[in-house]
């Protein structure tokens, strides 16, 4: 039963992963610091999932990145203009979904 619960939770979180990541990238973050920030916010993400996701979002034109090699070389990611627009759109969609789900779970008619 616990495994089944975990599967459901994983599926739920997978759907909001992009939104969670975008929400933390208004300020530049490198991979590990972003993972920490998400974990502190209550959204722990496996490293093997997060790092490739950052590359994918950059390829999709939502993030900009640059290397900082002053100390330990690290790649910093942040939202670009398209990423800001996507974040706003997804935030609105998410809030709408929350309203819908609240209605469904409470048994109310829309």
């Amino acid at each position, binding site marked *: 039963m616990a495994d089944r619960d975990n599967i459901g939770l994983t599926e739920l979180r997978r759907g909001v992963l992009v939104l969670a990541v975008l929400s933390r990238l208004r300020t530049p973050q*490198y*991979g*590990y610091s972003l993972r920490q920030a998400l974990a502190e916010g209550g959204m722990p993400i*496996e*490293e*093997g*999932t997060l*790092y*490739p996701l950052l*590359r994918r979002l950059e390829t999709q034109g939502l993030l900009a990145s640059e290397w900082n090699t002053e100390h*330990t*070389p*690290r*790649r910093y990611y942040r939202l670009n203009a398209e990423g800001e627009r996507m974040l706003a759109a997804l935030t609105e969609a998410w809030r709408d979904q929350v309203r819908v789900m609240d209605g469904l779970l409470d048994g109310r008619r829309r």
Partner: protein
Amino acid sequence: MNADDVIESYVRDVARYLPRGKRNDVAFELRALLGDELAAKAQAAGRAPDKAMALELLTGFGRPAEAAGRYHQRPAVIDPTDTHHFLIWSLAAAVIVAVLARTSWAGAVGAGGLFLQCLGALAVVFALKGWWRRRRPGALGWRPGRGQDWMPRGLAVLAMTATLIFPVFMYAAPQTFVQVMFVGTLPTSGVALTEAFSQSGLRVATMTFLVLLAAMYAAIAVQGGGRPWTGWASVVLHGGLGLLLVAHAAPAEPLAGRESVPVFQSAGSNTVATPIFGAVGAMLVLCALYDAYREWWRVSPAPALEKRPD
């Protein structure tokens, strides 16, 4: 080997699975990320990072091929959704090769080589199909079908008439058939049957199957379409007819322990007709096997009713 060597080895192996243009960039970033993760892990453990700690970290990351797959997903050679059909076709190829292996048709390649060639050809066809779908989304899309029972009355009547005229008439009276079809312009002596064949059980059985086939089409015409029983009747009739025609082509001695009965009086006609009988018979058997497969997998949506306890 220390922790850094382990990470370096992992990063190198991940990069090997990536496209050349991405390798260095991903490897550089992955090394930095794994370094951060390892440092945090060591800090949490209160000791310096070591090989065991690095291996534990990388186990969570997955095999290098899996990690690389998350950075760059390569399409499958055969789409997972095509796997079922690929296996069905492979099985069909195995059956055909097994049948051919009983004859000399497998040739110098041998049955094993022929089967491998078939598998290779199937892999290429399915890979091209998947590639085309990825290249042109929407191409090779699904189209609604009429279902395996579809046969309107007109088509069933046409099939019955064609069966009566072509195989039944031709088989029952080949000389009259040639005379009528070619309006007497061709000599009919070439298709004159031998006395032995005319009175053979093989001919009677073949005639029976041909007439039953025409009767089945008549039944479909009356019903206004096929039914599950006509599907199985078609399998039996086509399969039986195919085997009988193969028997026309096969020498009788090894099968029945008696002397072969030539079909035609003319030796030349027998030479020409024998491989045709064999090929048509084999084709009918293959069609019957395919129809049997379709009947076996027939989908009749209905609620699955649980058996009530007695």
